[in-house]
């Protein structure tokens, strides 16, 4: 589902200000950004430029201080705390730099986790989680625990978990940051394959090598979009 303008995400004049001990930090200032369905967007920039803050707002993990955020044409910047998890669960898939797999759950249970919060049947969850794991080539490790996997394998599981709920967009925050270059390449190839299969992707990275995988790159500096290519 998209908006009438055909945009999946639209940010207008989004700002984010953190206030700590009388110090105001402007993490984002007047950001305008649109993401279309099937697009592979990259948000690049140096450390501390506001990339992750932007991704948090897009992923409904945080709300903007001002401005408008429309997801599939619906204003979501003012959603109540009760509505946010549900929308996040259905529309957004996260891939984190630190993988963020739960150590007490098996690979299969980690992938199944977003579906358990939707209250769908066990058989359906099993079918979808197995399918997602097969898609990233991790079906054979379903009973393992995250600590029994390499970094690259953990990131593949994280991708499977992001995919399993069939979200509208995948948000990847420095997905190669904890991987060596070989595993980093593999992870990016996997994301490219997903994009080619129709997924909408938003990648945050400071590494120009990986930014090249995207169709479009926006450069962020001190919370402001300074370039778009």
């Amino acid at each position, binding site marked *: 589902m998209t908006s009438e303008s055909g945009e999946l995400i639209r940010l207008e004049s989004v700002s984010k200000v953190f206030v700590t001990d009388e110090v105001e930090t402007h993490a984002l200032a007047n950001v305008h950004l649109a993401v279309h369905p099937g697009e592979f967007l990259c948000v690049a920039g140096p450390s501390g430029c506001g990339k992750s803050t932007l991704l948090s707002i897009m992923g409904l993990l945080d709300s903007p201080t001002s401005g408008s955020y429309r997801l599939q044409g619906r204003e979501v910047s003012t959603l109540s705390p009760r509505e946010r998890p*549900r929308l996040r669960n259905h529309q957004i898939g996260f891939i984190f730099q630190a993988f963020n797999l739960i150590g007490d*759950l098996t690979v299969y249970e980690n992938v199944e986790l977003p579906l358990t919060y939707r209250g769908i049947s066990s058989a359906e969850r099993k079918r979808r989680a197995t399918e997602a794991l097969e898609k990233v080539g991790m079906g054979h490790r379903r009973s393992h625990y995250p600590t029994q996997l390499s970094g690259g394998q953990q990131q593949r599981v994280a991708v499977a978990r992001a995919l399993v709920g069939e979200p509208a967009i995948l948000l990847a925050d420095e997905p190669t940051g904890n991987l060596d270059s070989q595993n980093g390449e593999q992870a990016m190839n996997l994301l490219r394959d997903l994009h080619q299969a129709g997924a909408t992707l938003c990648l945050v990275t400071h590494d120009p090598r990986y930014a090249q995988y995207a169709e479009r790159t926006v450069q962020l500096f001190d919370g402001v979009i300074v370039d778009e290519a």
Partner: protein
Amino acid sequence: MRREEEARPSRLKEMLHPLAQDVRFALRMLMKRPVFTITAVLCLALGIGANTAIFSVVESVLLRPLPYPHSDRLVDLTTVDPKYGKNGVSPAQFLAWREQCRSFEGLAAWNWQNFTVTGRGEPLWVRGAVVSPSLFGVLGVSPALGRGFLPSEERPGHAPVAILSWRLFRNDFASDAKVVGTTLKLNGIPTMIVGVMPSGFGFPEGAALWVPPENLVPRWLFAPPGEDPRTNWMEYFSVIGRLKPGVAAGEARAEAQAVFQRSPGVPGDVARQTIAAGVPFASLVQKVRPTILVLYGTVCLVLLIACANVVNLLLALAEERRREFAVRLALGAGRWRLVRQLLTESVLLALLGGGLGCLMALWGVAALAHWGPQDIPRITQVSVNPWILLYLFGVCLATGLLFGLLPALRSSRIDLSEWLKEGTPASAGRHTGATRSALVIAEVALALVVAVEAGLLAASFRRLQEVHLGFDPSHVLSMRISLPPPAYPSAETIAGLTRQILERARAIPGVQAASLASPMPVGGWVIAVNSLMKTGNVLGKGMQQMQIFRAVSPGYFQVLRIPAVKGRVFDDRDGSGAPPVAVINETMARQFWPGGNAIGQLICPAFDNHNGHPVYREIVGIVGDVRGIDPAREPMPEIDVPYAQCRGRRVTSVMQGLWLNLRTGSDPLSLARAAKAAVWSADKELPITDVKTMDQIVAGLLARQRFDALLLGLFALLALLLAALGIYGVTAYSAAQRTHEIGIRMAVGADPAGILRLVARRGMALVLAGGCLGLIGVFSLTRLLRGLLYGVSPLDPVAIAIAGFLLAAVSLLACTMPARRAARLDPMAALRRDG
């Protein structure tokens, strides 16, 4: 979307599946953290176990209704004297109520009575009761074997009959059903056993044998020979009644009062009494209620400390699992869903703790029933019954929610974007650190209150032990000899027996002196009388305070080493033909003859009459006070008279319970066999019971106080240990959080001692704060102990100081362990850790 809706499970499954998933994950989480799980389960088990064990006493003693059908309709009827309080009921009153009161379905009278059962091996002494035949009907209980009493069996001339308790039937008659219908000798009189009551029945508590009045017991139990029982106003019965449905106890009381007031011939001192109707045995329960409630309050504090500990552990664990919670929230788990999962974990933890606590409670309840002081009613019936299990389950749920809620709510409120990034946010643990410190302060405060409570009771017990009882209990052997009334119907026959027993006992090698007393001066019951004084030729009025009456043999004061303060004690001059004499104690002399002129005065104890004429006795000596009933209470006035000069029916009944006291040169118990043989050489059918040293009897006087002090001491130890665990946990956690800082300090020159002080100081600051808060608790709560203390103020500075010192010592130990570990850190390794 359609596919998802089709795949949605049924409503029940929808509800149960996430729960099952939460339980499965909770179990896995607990198993993967064995140290955390074992520590938390042990904390909870100790708290819940102690709480459940003491609650089972509360339930059994204070809450459980009498085990009879519709027991809410059973009431005790008593008389209340404006001066002396509650009294018994006379036959005249009982008979008038039974005939005229319409509020009751039935009324029954009863009185304790001791029985000697002979003809089957060694003579058996049994504590039983004389009951009106209606008793079992009023209670709604039928015999398990045979029949109950017939109404006609309370009338004079009926063949003697008796009913056995199940315990007596099982233990002494080998559960032989043929005993019903056989004839045994009870108190020397052939008596037919007509029934056996069911297992567990024992009314009044502990009674093992029942007989109707007018057989086996002196006829004057209902009325003296030839007298109409309707004119007998001696109040020695207890009365229980069953109200008709819909009748309130107050209505019945008013009716009983009206019947009483219009009864003809009520003596003047009886007429001033009022009637009370209340829950049966309420006064017995009332006496122990404060002790039990204090114990229960204490175990609730211990449980709170245990819960605070588990909250602390869970908060620490929640810190460790913050990233997991963040991931769950990021993936779409709502806040409530996360709270529910964490509550599932905490309730599961509580149930595991409750399971282990239940085993501990079973053990504790068995110990309480076995070693609990016997003056607590129904203590032997304390058990873990379904109600207790329900309570236990409720406590588990409540504690699970109590200690789980705060960590759960905390965990569900996290900054997702911060926690999902690489590395730990700088703010991590700050808030929980403050909460955990507050919890430790509360734990220390509660532990101090419990420790001071225990200290006060221990100090009180010590003071009681130091009370001079007024005699020397060491090297004294004591035993009870119950005389069957038919064989010893008069004071003269008893006096002959006592002479024989004393002669033979004194001849036992190792016995230095022997004497007899009725009743026993220590640990038994008292016979309270009112006496008349005669000054010159003027008959005095009744004295203002009741006096203890005791019949004794010559040598009684010497055997117990009760000092003569003035005048003389009894000797061979005081025979049956000599002028009647009495010895009184110091309290009596002081109260009634404050001028110090008691010697030579004449008194007449109410019991003491010969052929209906009062016997005036000359006071020939004053002896020291003996605190033989309750060392905490001031001694009562006491009159002692020589056996040889005792006359009259009522004195005879007192003398039928003899206590033989032997002063020995060696271990008193080594002479027990010889002493029994000496008694049986005088009469081989005399039952001998309660063979003990006087030291054992004296120890029994303080059994409850000792038990209370021990139990509270145990709970205080538990509270201190739990508080120490909490202090240890918080100090260790704080030290771990400051590892990087400690590395920097070491790098710039801090020595290990400085690091040790740095870490320990934080823990001890919490202890200090907890101690101050605890003092406020001590000042407000220990007042509740006032009624349980003897010679100690509820704010006794020594008890508070000792408790504070112990708490400080345990806390210092708990702080030092993590501090020492921190002081041994490798600075380079510490610096490599995240700041």
